[in-house]
């Protein structure tokens, strides 16, 4: 009896674990099925009346995804730098804005948008390198001073940029092959005469989303599959130990900082083409990446991706369905995350 009960309890416990996983699996399947149905089915009237229209809903989702892509590009550099150096770089937004302006200048000068993008990345990577060598290396180990210095840099940079580029709103023109809208194979409505109305979406935004995914995968491969990546990961876990094992930590720091700054500059050009470039963008993107990184977990690329996804979707859905209180939504998400997981969704205690 005792034996049987003992042997019973074990499979029971196992099957409980299985059922829990199964429940999750079924939940995910159901949600996926509902989403697929929402994308491809023709909506009944009650659903249209709740969510304004299928077109509005799907556009909000797509916009949320592309905005998430942009946020991810900015926040990934931010989170990398923080993870490795414990340095909250509050000048990260200024790097974004500077990248956008430089991209604009180069695109105007050469006439090639791609050169603008490349210039935004390369020049900002150099700027990041200079910042790391001239400023942060001198203040190493003094986190508070480093952070305060970055605030100072961001204030000075904002005024210098305002002095040079003025307050005008710039728009980086995308080349012809990237602009315009395309029809997605999704029917949003059927007209009374039977013709189908397809969802129309700006092509450039899909490119933004795609490039964010590609860069995200690239970063993940860099960090998880390369030698420099393993150094970075080791540095995130234990900086001193990494240094003691013969790795030139300063070199790793410099690489990461340049990469982070370059990504911010790249995001500036890409974002400045999708939206626009104007003074004040620096603070906006700094705030966005702070929220993204806090929600996702400091120092984690996957966390930045998840955080960007949540914040991007929340912002767009909020904007369409409750515009007055939409702004609050992002911060509610942040507060809830901090209450439940103080280190963020993918974060670890430091």
């Amino acid at each position: 009896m005792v034996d049987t009960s003992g042997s019973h309890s074990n499979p029971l416990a196992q099957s409980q674990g299985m059922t829990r996983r199964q429940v999750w699996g079924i939940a995910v399947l159901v949600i996926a099925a509902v989403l697929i149905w929402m994308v491809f089915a023709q909506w009944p009237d009650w659903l249209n009346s709740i969510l304004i229209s299928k077109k509005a809903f799907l556009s909000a989702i797509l916009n949320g995804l592309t905005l998430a892509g942009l946020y991810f590009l900015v926040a990934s550099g931010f989170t990398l730098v923080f993870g490795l150096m414990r340095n909250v770089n509050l000048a990260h937004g200024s790097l974004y804005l500077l990248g956008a302006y430089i991209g604009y200048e180069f695109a105007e000068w050469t006439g090639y948008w791609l050169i603008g993008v490349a210039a935004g990345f390369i020049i900002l990577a150099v700027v990041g390198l200079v910042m790391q060598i001239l400023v942060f290396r001198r203040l190493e180990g003094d986190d508070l001073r480093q952070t305060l210095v970055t605030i100072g840099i961001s204030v000075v940079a904002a005024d210098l940029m305002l002095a040079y580029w003025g307050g005008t709103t710039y728009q980086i023109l995308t080349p012809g092959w990237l602009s315009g809208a395309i029809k997605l194979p999704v029917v949003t409505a059927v007209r009374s005469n039977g013709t189908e109305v397809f969802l129309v979406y700006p092509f450039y935004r899909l490119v933004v989303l795609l490039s964010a995914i590609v860069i995200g995968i690239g970063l993940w491969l860099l960090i998880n599959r390369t030698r420099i990546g393993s150094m970075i990961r080791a540095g995130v876990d234990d900086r001193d130990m990494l240094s003691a094992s013969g790795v030139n930590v300063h070199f790793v720091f410099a690489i990461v900082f340049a990469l982070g700054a370059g990504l911010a500059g790249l995001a500036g050009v890409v974002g400045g083409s999708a939206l626009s470039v104007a003074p004040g963008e620096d603070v906006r993107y700094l705030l966005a990446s702070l929220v993204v990184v806090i929600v996702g977990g400091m120092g984690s690329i996957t966390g930045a991706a998840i955080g960007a996804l949540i914040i991007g979707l929340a912002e767009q859905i909020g904007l369409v369905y409750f515009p007055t209180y939409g702004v609050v939504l992002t911060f509610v998400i942040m507060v809830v995350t901090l209450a439940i997981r103080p280190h963020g969704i993918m974060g670890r205690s430091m």
Partner: protein
Amino acid sequence: MNINRRTLLALALATGMSAPTLAVAQAESIKIGLLATFEGAFTVLGEDSERGAMTAVDEFGGKVAGKDIEIVKGSSDASPDSAVRAARKLVEQDGVKVLIGPLSGDEGIAIKDYAKTQPDVTFLNGSSAAQDTTLRDPASNFFRFSTDGAQWMAGLGDYAFNEKGYKTVATVAEDYSFPYTQVFGFMAEFCKAGGHVPSKSWVPIGNKDYSSVIAAIPDDVDAIYVALGGADAVNFLSQYNDAGGQAPLIGGSITVDQTVLTAKGRLHDVLVGTPAAGPTADTNDDPAWKEFSEAYKKQNGAFPSPSLFAHAYYINMKAALLGLQEVNGDVSDGGKKLREVLSGLEFETPTGKVSLDENRNAIADMFLTEVTEAGDGTLVNKLIKVTPQVNQTLGIPKDEFLALGAVSRENPSCP
């Protein structure tokens, strides 16, 4: 920005030693505070408003009643609290007795409330154009020689319905008092003419991504009324273009202002042909306007034509200077005499005669315009029609007008 200001404060304290010499200088000069948005999303607008104000100062040769005019600038970021902070600094630290500003709607209401606590200071509006800055619960020392956002819309609703033939219009506007006022002004006429507004979108100031808002606009409206300003307008318009937007646009006063028409980007196609109304028209061929336009262009970084912000700040600054001239620059009585003069002041502006009503809000001519391409490729607002001497109640008896209720997201409504 806080740090910025704190540093300034520290500097101000450090230079406190030189205060005696400054006091000597003060005897010869008249200090006028100039409050505008020199930071944030409305920076361009703030910069142009300064050009307008300085055009008036230059017109007086930098002197009034034999004393030098000393302009002390204060900067806000279009939020009411930053405006009040800047005004307090100008009034309580710099000691200005006359203050021109602010630029934007909610700021105006906040400054009006602040004005009540400073009865010895004379406040003249900048370009802020919310209705309730002067209509309900006004401050006795706050003067608005520029008009409000509902007045600016005079003629547009009629034109859209009768001339353009738009029967249904969706609105997209920023979520604060000035766009409420503009939408009110447009709908007052449009709904009366028989039009319908089935959908109104209110978006936060400084919003960048409008594509979701654009997608939520019903497909079956005849036109979209857009009341957004500065960078917001540029973002909306270029994204509307990218999304393949088909419906024609109707512009709020600041949506098709020079600050937007000169922005760098692909706005040209969506903007040409857009009707709008406001206190100025670029192609106005009145000699007074041309003269003003030429004087304005002497300012640094001026647009091809003065924006309505430059215009509003010019008018208010000019009113202040005319008033100061009349009282011989004497504000030692707490500005009482100056305010008496201002209340009765009536003068010719580049856009016609301006006088004040009993709430100290201007009565002035309004201009119905349409965006066209000028010979040199720049976009300008072509004058279509002038609506003479529009008052704050849009010609409706005051009791009846007040009964329509305060402007808000829901008021007015004609779905």
